[in-house]
C-alpha cells in the first residue's frame, strides 16, 4: 500500500474518530446542537463552492435549500413518505428546479448572476410566505417529524428525536455528501469545470459543451443544498419564511462569508471557514448582538489582508517566517 494512501486512510480514521467522539466529549446538548447546525452549514457552503468552480457566485443558494427543506418536510407530513426517501426527494426537487433554470440562468455572468440568484431565492421565499395552504404561510411549517426510526438486526431500533442521534445521522449524511463533492471535483468532470472557469471561450474551442457542464454543476450543487435544507427541516422541526430566518438574504450573506473567509481555492476552505466562524460566534455567546458586526469585520479584514482565506494561512506564515530568518544583506562598499 503506498505511503500516500496510508496517510489518507489514517487521516480519515482520525477524523471519523474525532467526529464520533465530539458529542461525548463536549457532553452537552447545546454544543451538540451547534455541531448539527454547523454540519449542515458545512454542506451548504461546500456546495456553494462547487458552483464557484465553474466561475459563478450565487447569493441564492439558500433558495434551493428552502426547496429541499419544505419539499422533504411536506412529503413526509402530507404524503406520508418515509424520511429516508423524502430527504433524497427533497434534494431531487431542488436539483430539478435548478436544472430547469440552469440554461437561461447560467448564460448570465458576473454581478448580474449574483443579482439574479439573490432575487430568485427571494422569490422562492416569498412563494413559501404567501402560500399558506401548502407551506403554512407566514407562520411557517410546524411540527415537522423527526426521521423515521430504523431497525438494525442486532442493535435494535434507533430513533432520531434526540439531538445526539440526529448528530450522528447528520454527520454520516454530510460526510457522504462531502465525499461525493470532493471526488467530483478531483475527477475529469471537475477538471473540465476548472477549465470552464478559466476560459469559457477556450473550453468551447476544445470541444467542451460549456452550457451542459455548467448546468450539471449547478444541478449537483443545488441538489446538495436541498439535502442540507431537508436535514435542517427534520432537525429543527419547524421552517419559517421570515427574511431573518434561514432562507432569507442574511443567510445567503453568511454563506458567502463562510466560504470566503475559509478560502475558496481548496475543498477544505469552506469547511475551515464554517468551523472557524461558528467557533467565533460561540465564543461571543454573551454578545450575540455583536455577532453580525464581528462576522462582517472578519469578512472585510479577510478580503483586504488575506483574500485567499484561512487556507492560505500556512503559506503566509511560511513566507513571513522565511523573511524573518533571512539575514539582512550587507551592501559591499566598493573600495
Amino acid at each position, binding site marked *: 500500500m503506498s505511503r500516500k494512501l496510508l496517510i489518507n486512510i489514517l487521516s480519515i480514521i482520525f477524523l471519523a474518530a474525532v467526529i464520533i467522539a465530539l458529542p461525548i466529549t463536549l457532553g452537552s446538548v447545546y454544543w451538540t446542537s451547534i455541531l448539527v447546525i454547523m454540519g449542515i452549514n458545512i454542506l451548504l457552503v461546500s456546495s456553494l463552492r462547487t458552483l464557484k468552480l465553474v466561475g459563478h457566485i450565487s447569493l441564492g443558494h439558500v433558495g434551493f435549500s428552502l426547496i429541499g427543506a419544505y419539499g422533504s418536510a411536506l412529503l413526509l407530513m402530507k404524503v406520508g413518505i418515509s424520511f429516508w426517501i423524502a430527504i433524497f426527494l427533497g434534494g431531487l426537487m431542488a436539483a430539478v428546479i435548478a436544472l430547469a433554470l440552469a440554461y437561461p440562468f447560467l448564460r448570465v455572468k458576473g454581478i448580474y448572476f449574483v443579482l*439574479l440568484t439573490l*432575487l430568485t431565492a427571494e422569490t422562492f421565499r*416569498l412563494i413559501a410566505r*404567501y402560500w399558506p395552504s401548502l407551506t403554512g404561510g407566514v407562520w411557517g411549517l410546524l411540527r415537522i417529524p423527526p426521521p423515521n426510526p430504523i431497525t438494525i438486526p442486532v442493535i435494535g431500533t434507533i430513533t432520531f428525536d434526540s439531538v445526539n442521534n440526529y448528530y450522528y445521522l447528520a454527520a454520516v449524511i454530510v460526510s457522504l455528501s462531502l465525499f461525493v463533492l470532493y471526488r467530483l471535483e478531483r475527477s475529469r468532470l471537475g477538471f473540465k469545470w476548472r477549465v470552464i472557469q478559466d476560459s469559457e471561450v477556450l473550453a468551447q474551442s476544445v470541444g467542451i459543451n460549456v452550457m451542459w457542464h455548467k448546468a450539471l454543476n449547478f444541478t449537483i450543487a443545488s441538489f446538495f443544498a436541498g439535502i442540507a435544507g431537508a436535514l435542517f427541516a427534520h432537525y429543527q422541526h419547524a421552517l419559517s419564511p421570515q427574511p431573518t430566518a434561514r432562507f432569507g438574504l442574511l443567510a445567503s450573506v453568511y454563506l458567502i*462569508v463562510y466560504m470566503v473567509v475559509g478560502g475558496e481555492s481548496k475543498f477544505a476552505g469552506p469547511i475551515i471557514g464554517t468551523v472557524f466562524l461558528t467557533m467565533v460566534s460561540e465564543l461571543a455567546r454573551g454578545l450575540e448582538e*455583536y455577532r453580525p458586526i464581528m462576522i462582517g469585520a*472578519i469578512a472585510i479584514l479577510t478580503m483586504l489582508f488575506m483574500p485567499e482565506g484561512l487556507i492560505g494561512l500556512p503559506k503566509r506564515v511560511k513566507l513571513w517566517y522565511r523573511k524573518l530568518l533571512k539575514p539582512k544583506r550587507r551592501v559591499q562598499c566598493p573600495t
Partner: protein
Amino acid sequence: MDLPAQVWVQAIVNGLALGWLYVLMALGLTLIMSIMGILQLAHGEVYMIGAYVTYYCCVSFGVNFYAAMFISMVVMAVFGIFMEKFLFRPVRTQILSPIVISLGLTLILMGSAVVGFGLYERSIPRLAQGSFVFLGSAVPKDRIIAVGFAVALLLLLYLFLKKSKYGQAMVASAQSREGALLRGINPNLMSSMAMAIGCALAAAAGTLAGSILMLSPSMGTFPLLKGLVIIVLGGMGSLLGATIGGIFLGVIDGVIPVAFGPAVASMAPLIIVIIILLVRPQGLFGHE
C-alpha cells in the same frame, strides 16, 4: 376590482411618493455601479444610517429638520469617500472581493444599528401636518414635501451632471470606464465622487422616508431591493433609466397591492427583474 376611484388615486399617489425616494436610491446605486463597477449591497444600510443621523440631530441636538438632513447627507458622503478609499479601492480589480466587502459592510452597519439604536422603531418629527385634497382623496402634506425634496435633489444632480466639468466627467465614466480613462479622467476621483453623491442621495432618501414612515435598523433592505430592481429595469449606468424606472416602479408598487394583493406585489417586481436579467441584462436604457 371595482374599488372607488379615490382608492386608486390614493394608491397611485402613495406609490409616486415612495417611488421618488426609490429613485434617489437607484441613482446612487447606478452611479456607483457603473463608475466603480461594484454592486454596493450595503447601500440600504447607508440609507438607514442616514435616517438615524438625522433623527439624532433633530431629537438629541434639537437641530432643525432641514439642517439635520443636510448634515446627514454630508456625513454619509464623507463616509462614502472613506469606504471607497479604504475598502473598495484596494480590491477594485477583483470580482468576489468587492461583493464580500459590501456584504461585510451590510453586516457591520446593520449590526451596529441594532446595538446602537435598538430594535424598536422610532420616527422623525413629521414634515408637516394635515393633507391636501386632490381629486377627491386626501394626500398627506408630508408626502408632497418629501417628493418635492426628492425632485429638487434630482434636478440639482441633473444640473451638476450636465453643466459642471466634473459632472460631465462622471457621465462619461458611467458610460464607459475605459473611454473615460483614455480621456485622462482620474478614476479615483470619479469613484470618490460617485460614492459621495450616492451616499448623500441615500441619506436624503432615508431621512425623507424616516419622516413619512418609521425608522428601524432593517429599514434599508427593502429600498435596496427596490433600487436594484429599478437599475435593472432602467439599465445599469443609465441615469434617465433609473429615474423613469423608479417612478414606474413606484406607481406599480402603489397600485398592485390594491389590485392584486400583497403576494403579487412583492413578487412581481422580482420576477420582472429576473426576466429582464435573463433576456436583456443591460436593462431598457442601459449601456454595458
